[in-house]
């Protein structure tokens, strides 16, 4: 087995074992941290499908996460305070599919437009759509505008009690495993080959007869839907949502995680999320300018360690 497979295994085992140990040691704070890591890992993994494998520099991914979180918060809000009969619900079996469906639809509509553009225009227009959602929620007084919305009740699911930190954690952990497998399977499939081919040389793929626009749009929708799912988990974890979750800097952070960890690698985005969370935790105790070292690290990775952390690990032993 190659080194990177051992590392993948080690990371996933560690993530399964550590949280119960933290609880047993009476340190629930670290379970919170692990939960946040796993949720960010899912969001970054979903971004990796389009950014890493598709080469689509989408700068608006946090919008999908935010939409997913509001899809939990808004139904719960109406359940408590009335109105909105069509969506009012505490049921996770309704909220989570709603989060996935709405973010997929948003991805379909915006992707259809964004993917008509290329390069820096694509970056700008994905960002513009995300900011549009940001300002949309800021303008809605009923859902707390820029103060945000407290989710008074977590999603109700059969067999799982999300109010239990460890159960919430393992629900997220299982979702992460699923997300990693989904993106990995898609990347290696015939669809994934076309997507990666179009990233490397779009004109060649068109000449071969592939309508690359449709392939990219499909990837964009899958990616958006997965990010919406991550958003539903995030809403349940923080029990609070605000437009700030969709700010462009949040999208930038997700991009950092993917590139730092290693774009177009299975585990890279999760590794990037881990580094992000560690830096954030450690440095934010000392300085409010903790973003700065993170930016410097990213520049170092881009300049000296192409392929990110996973690239460095891979080169150590297998020459790839």
């Amino acid at each position, binding site marked *: 087995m190659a080194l990177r497979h051992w590392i993948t295994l080690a990371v996933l085992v560690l993530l399964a074992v550590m949280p119960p140990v933290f609880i047993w040691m009476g340190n629930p704070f670290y379970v919170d941290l692990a939960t946040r890591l796993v949720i960010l890992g899912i969001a970054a993994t979903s971004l990796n499908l389009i950014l890493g494998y598709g080469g689509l520099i989408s700068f608006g991914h946090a919008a999908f996460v935010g939409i997913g979180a509001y899809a939990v918060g808004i139904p719960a809000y109406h359940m408590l305070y009335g109105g909105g009969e069509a969506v009012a619900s505490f049921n996770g079996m309704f909220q989570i599919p709603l989060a996935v469906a709405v973010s997929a639809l948003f991805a379909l509509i915006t992707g259809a437009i964004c993917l008509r553009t290329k390069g820096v225009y694509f970056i700008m227009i994905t960002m513009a759509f995300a900011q549009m959602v940001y300002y949309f929620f800021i303008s809605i007084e009923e859902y707390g505008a820029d103060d945000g919305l407290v989710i008074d009740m977590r999603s109700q699911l059969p067999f799982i009690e999300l109010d239990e930190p460890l159960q919430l954690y393992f629900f997220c952990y299982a979702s992460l495993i699923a997300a990693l497998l989904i993106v990995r399977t898609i990347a290696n499939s015939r669809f994934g080959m076309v997507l990666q081919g179009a990233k490397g040389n779009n*004109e*060649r793929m068109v000449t071969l*007869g592939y309508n690359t626009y449709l392939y990219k749009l499909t990837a964009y929708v899958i990616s958006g839907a997965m990010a919406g799912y991550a958003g539903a988990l995030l809403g349940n974890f923080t029990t609070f949502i605000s437009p700030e979750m969709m700010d462009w800097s949040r999208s930038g952070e997700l991009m950092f995680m993917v590139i730092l960890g290693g774009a177009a690698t299975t585990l890279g985005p999760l590794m990037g999320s881990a580094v992000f969370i560690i830096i954030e935790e450690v440095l934010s105790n000392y300085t409010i300018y903790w973003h700065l070292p993170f930016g410097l690290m990213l520049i170092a990775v881009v300049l000296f360690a192409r392929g990110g952390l996973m690239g460095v690990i891979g080169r150590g032993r297998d020459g790839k």
Partner: protein
Amino acid sequence: MSAELEISGLNKSFGGIKATDDINLAVTANELHAIIGPNGAGKTTLISQLIGSLRPDTGRIVFRGRDITRMPAHARARLGITRSFQITSLVMEMSVLDNVALAVQARDGHSFRFLRPARAVAHIREAARGYLEQVGLGPRADAPTVALSHGEHRLMEIAIALASEAGLMLLDEPMAGLGPEESALMVALLKQLKGSRTILLIEHDMDAVFALADRISVLVYGHVIATGMPDEIRFNHDVRHAYLGEE
């Protein structure tokens, strides 16, 4: 004999430059039709319009009786038109075999298949290996594309064009930048293909052109000034004056 490809009244300008100037040309099924002409004559521009990456300003392109003038590039490929690129155009990040496999996969139904690993689809991989062997790149199949030489990249272009199993191959200077041995290999390869499909060959190497072509058209300043058998072209006064005489 039926016309496989009919170009009529084709025009394309870039600003003030008329890159395609009222081109009328009929290419017969299974002929090897060479297009020669000085640098900047508009040869690549013509191919780009035939393949669909450039829109002509006016005129019509008919392939097998079907008007394809406004058809998107990917749809033309599905009808059986392929091109090779004058400037090598491959997916450098992928292996040699992956590049060819993508061409095989393209005509194996749609690729909205998400589950099975593409590299485990035996019939695609084996077919792709076959095309690589045909151009002599069999031993290089698993190498990363970036690791290959310029000559090998040119051969990959041909392997990919072959893998498309297209009825009409548009080859844009396949011998550009090749050494004498590699050129000879390429000529032998094209000789093998000749007769089994329609080939529009753009080439500066006159020895290769006269050795291979059934007919030749001469393009100067975007306009076809002559079309004929190799010998007619060789001794055509206008051609000698406008083009061959310069060499």
